[in-house]
């Protein structure tokens, strides 16, 4: 007796979680609920990474997206003044246009996704850590540093923008 089928079952569960969560983010009226469902979707994505044997990516996914980004979004939602917006849906006439633009992108994404079918798989057990570290800090060290300098500049810019003059 072995548990070979459990991976498939988990995959099915996570897929349902991701699709259901994503649908909830789009269709829910309450913005906070949408933010929390987004966190749930991210969690299910992390589960997918674990199934693929990329535990480090999964850990970073949870650490950054669930632990930090969702909380920041919740902050943003809570500090934004909320009024009753009964008029908001009144002008909502973009559905056909949206469908027209999304459909080609959807076809492209589907084709792109299926092109990965036979590509390699990471080795389970957290051994993706070394490969990740080598690629970030050795092979792509320069782009990594450039990106971090860019982020630093953006952060300083944000601080300068929100700093009050009267201090």
């Amino acid at each position: 007796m072995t548990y070979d089928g459990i991976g498939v079952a988990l995959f099915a569960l996570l897929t349902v979680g991701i699709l259901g969560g994503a649908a909830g983010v789009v269709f829910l009226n309450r913005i906070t609920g949408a933010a929390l469902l987004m966190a749930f979707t991210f969690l299910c994505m992390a589960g997918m990474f674990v199934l693929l044997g990329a535990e480090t990516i999964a850990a970073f996914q949870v650490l950054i997206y669930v632990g930090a980004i969702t909380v920041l979004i919740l902050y943003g939602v809570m500090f934004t003044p909320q009024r009753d917006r009964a008029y908001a849906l009144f002008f909502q006439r973009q559905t056909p246009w949206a469908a027209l633009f999304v459909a080609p992108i959807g076809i492209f994404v589907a084709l792109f996704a299926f092109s990965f079918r036979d590509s390699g798989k990471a080795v389970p057990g957290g051994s993706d850590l070394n490969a990740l570290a080598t690629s970030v800090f050795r092979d792509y060290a320069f782009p990594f540093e450039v990106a971090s300098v860019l982020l630093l500049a953006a952060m300083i810019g944000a601080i300068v923008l929100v700093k009050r003059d009267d201090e």
Partner: protein
Amino acid sequence: MVPGPFGLDPAVWAILRLLIAVLLAVGLVFNGALAQIYLERKIQAIIQDRVGPIHTGPWGLLQTLADAIKLLGKEDIRAKLTDHWFFLAAPAIVFSPMLASYVVIPFAPGVIGADLNIGLLYLTTLGSMTVLGIVIAGWASNNKYSLIGGLRSAGQLISYEVPQILSLVTVVLVVGSLSTTKIVESQEGWLINLLILPLAFVTYFIAGLAETNRNPFDLPEAESELVAGFLTEYSGMRWGLFFVAEYGEVTVVSGIVTTLWLGGWHGPLTDVHPLFGPALGVLWFTLKTYFLVLVFMWIRATLPRFRIDQLMSLCWKLLIPVTLLNVMVTAVLLLAFPESHIPVAIANWLMLAGVVALVPFLQRRRLAALRERLAVQRTAAVGAGQP
């Protein structure tokens, strides 16, 4: 698959092992919470010159058990305007990452849920998920105090995560592994990481206090100003679950400190017998962990609560620069002297001394103002004819 003991089928043993591990972790968390609440009350009572619980059972030992039964029997009250599902989910979202943390805590050689290669990363990941639960609790309660408590907690936890992770990084640099078992194995003998990295220990401990919402960092649930913050609308066992999660978190942080700095299961007589040795290892681990839990309680009984601006400036102006400097110095010294940890240790002790000496210098204006106020009070007291 792991082969089972006593000739058990590995497939059966896999499920059995999972069951045993989960039951042990749940038992550990709940009984640990009961024991810690008793200890907390007794130790605070001793420090504040009171007696603490004495009436229920010998030395009041059954008091927390009675409290737990009372909590379980309470009506499940839910205010009408709370956000139903999120209100129900919040205690579980706070509780389950804490329970999952026990997977990678190494109690003894071989006594570990799963020896993950990324153990420390996994622990920090779970620690960051607690924020979400507390923010949801604060928001779903539909209460202004709760919301402020939840937002304070989010700001505090996100800020203190940075020095916490940076302190862990120094240990990872010295040991060269993220696996908790390997970190403990590297500290065989007397040279534990506490002697090599005392500064990282201090910064991690302070950040850990903040991460568990304990005094002096318990602003999210400040009773006197926020009527218990995000806990205001909760009652009964849902409220109890938050507290069990808090005590479990304290145990996890103490366990991490024990693993990373105090040598984990290492202690006298652990290699005498193949069965007796690991049991003794579990004992050493538990003793070290509970010593740190007692330090948590000691701090709670002695220090007053921070103001929110003091909390933030402590983190961003002192802890983060110090831990960043620590990471850089440790990395450079490890590159310069790959054979020995002694230069790192010397540098770390010097930096710790420097930081301790720096604090009165940074606070010199406040200290001067305090001295002035005390002098004024003293002269006023003399003027009023009091000794």
